[in-house]
């Protein structure tokens, strides 16, 4: 995956490489022509608001992948972020339903997220369990803990701050959109505009080379897991706002959409690597496709089939284009 070639890609490879984007554009145009109200500002707002939790967890995941390398089995991956997000949402909702204050609830959720991030980091960098396995089993454990916290109940939240995040407008747009954008921008700034971020990327690019140049790759990888858990913490508030509370079972769909969006994003990037903007774009496109098919009246049972085929088509294009170079 990571063999760098100096020669520019051939025309055929470039055409194949942009195929995923063309495919998506074509699909959106098709939906736009067939669903009456799809191409409207209102739908765009709906899509963006719907995608926000995924956007945030995807940003966190792309940091982990950038630092750990893009091999899904042996490289960096963090499947526990959706579970962390759901746990934080559960803690906040449970605490608020017991007449607790939002401040303390936030602090407790933050501590829980930090704990998950630190356990992930310790298991991966100290004990040497592969990230896939670590975060998969942490997903199970964290979801289990959330079910103890919430007793697997749906907990509604009507705290003014959460309702504000859900309903408030700024210049005619839901306030949650610019806030999520700020979170993603902050992570982007960290990854691409700071020394620390470049060190993280160097670690993912070639761990050996990064170590030889004196970077503490273990510490950097540990940091990526903590940052990912914090992204989960941030996403929890968008989950609470989107669902007006916390519901059990949210984590499964969030996990699938996160993985889909992040690796879809990689297919859009010129070098086929996971990038933060690719992941964000992926998350928005996934939401657009879901909402688009729904507004076309396509049965909801079919969306999994459509999403699954999309991943496969896009990833297959990617691997064919890679070989064509």
């Amino acid at each position, binding site marked *: 995956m990571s063999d760098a070639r100096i020669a520019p890609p051939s025309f055929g490879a470039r055409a194949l490489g942009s195929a995923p984007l063309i495919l998506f554009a074509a699909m959106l145009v098709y939906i736009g022509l067939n669903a009456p109200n799809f191409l409207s500002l209102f739908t765009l707002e709906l899509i963006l608001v719907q995608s926000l939790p995924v956007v945030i967890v995807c940003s966190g995941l792309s940091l982990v992948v950038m630092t750990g390398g893009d091999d*899904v*089995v042996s490289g960096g991956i963090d499947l526990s972020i959706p579970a962390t997000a759901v746990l934080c949402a559960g803690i906040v909702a449970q605490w608020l339903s017991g007449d607790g204050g939002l401040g303390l609830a936030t602090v407790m959720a933050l501590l829980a997220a930090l704990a998950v991030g630190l*356990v992930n980091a310790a*298991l991966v960098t100290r*004990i*040497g*369990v*592969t990230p*896939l*396995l*670590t975060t*998969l*089993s*942490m*997903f*199970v*454990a*964290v*979801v*289990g*803990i959330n*079910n*103890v916290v919430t*007793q*697997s109940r749906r907990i509604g939240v009507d705290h003014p701050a959460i309702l504000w995040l859900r309903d408030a407008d700024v210049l005619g747009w839901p306030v949650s959109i610019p806030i999520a954008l700020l979170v993603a921008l902050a992570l982007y700034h960290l990854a691409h505009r700071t020394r620390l971020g470049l060190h993280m990327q160097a670690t993912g690019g070639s761990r050996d080379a990064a170590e030889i140049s004196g970077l503490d790759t273990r510490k950097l990888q540990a940091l990526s897991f903590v940052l990912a858990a914090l992204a989960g913490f941030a996403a929890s508030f968008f989950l609470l706002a989107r669902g007006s509370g916390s519901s059990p079972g949210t984590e499964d769909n969030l996990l*699938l959409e996160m*993985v*889909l969006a992040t*690796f879809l994003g990689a297919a859009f990037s010129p070098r086929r690597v996971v990038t933060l903007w690719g992941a964000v774009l992926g998350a928005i496109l996934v939401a657009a496709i879901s909402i688009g098919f729904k507004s076309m009246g396509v*049965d909801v*049972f*079919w*969306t*999994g*089939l*459509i*999403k*699954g*085929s999309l*991943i*496969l088509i896009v*990833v*297959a294009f990617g*691997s*064919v284009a890679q*070989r064509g170079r």
Partner: protein
Amino acid sequence: MVGTIGLRGIFIRFGFLLVFAAFALFFAVVNPVFATGGNLMNIAEGSAILLIVALGMTLIVATGGIDLSVGIALDFGAAFSIVAMQSYGADWVTACAAGVIGGSLVGLLNAALVVGLRVSPFMATLGTFFIGSSVQRIFTNGGGPISFRQMPDGFRNLAMGNVGGVPMEVVIAAILAVIYFVVLERSVWGRRIHAMGMQRSAATVAGIRVNRILIVCYVAAAATCAVGGLIAGASIRMFTPLSGFAYLLDAIAAVFIGAALHPRGRPNVPGTIAGVLFLGMVVNGLNLMGLNFNTKDALSGIILVSALALAVAQRRMR
């Protein structure tokens, strides 16, 4: 390391087994029922389907991949066999064959993606998982179970029968485990699979037909999971869509606990069996303690994380 005695040496050799034993002792002390023969058979019976799925997973992980669609193959096994009997009046042997063939379709799709299109196994089987789940929803109009009360005794016996007092599902799982053990650990085929999993390019250069082996492995793994689906269908006399997903994480965990117990960290059949029995024992023991459902879930999750950490740490210290 030869001759090292002391805590470190003991931990390195027997760490995981000691913890296994400690858990068993703890459960037995808390509830004496745990250690009775009948309950141990319960554990074996409860672990049979997971073992069958985990065997398929062991094969795929040995090739250097991962299979996220094992649950779909299991569901297809149950669905095809039950529909064959209910809608087409098939006898139970034909129904079993239909189930295994139905499950193999999932493996064929995976093989086509991994070998034909060179999609990474993670993404390919994730895609298969999405598609397979959706197909089940479409087929059952949203996920309602298909129940079939009047199933032939032959089929029902897959789950309810016994051989000399040993439940049939344990017998089937044991037979499959022996076959997997012989093929994967004691045959030329197994050597080739391991060689390929450790270093694909070296295996290709050495003349191993990597693609052909991969196709066979994906289909065989899916067919194995479909056998688990037959048993699941026979035991509850219905096909419940998407029920196979429950085995996915446990199967992965069992395979990797087993791999961590191996001297060179390879997935292997005895290790997988140890992993499956450990998970089965924990679930059974926590059940007998009469804990609240949610607490039990959280505890088994935490035990899973700790067991993995311990197994890997034990190998790293060698």
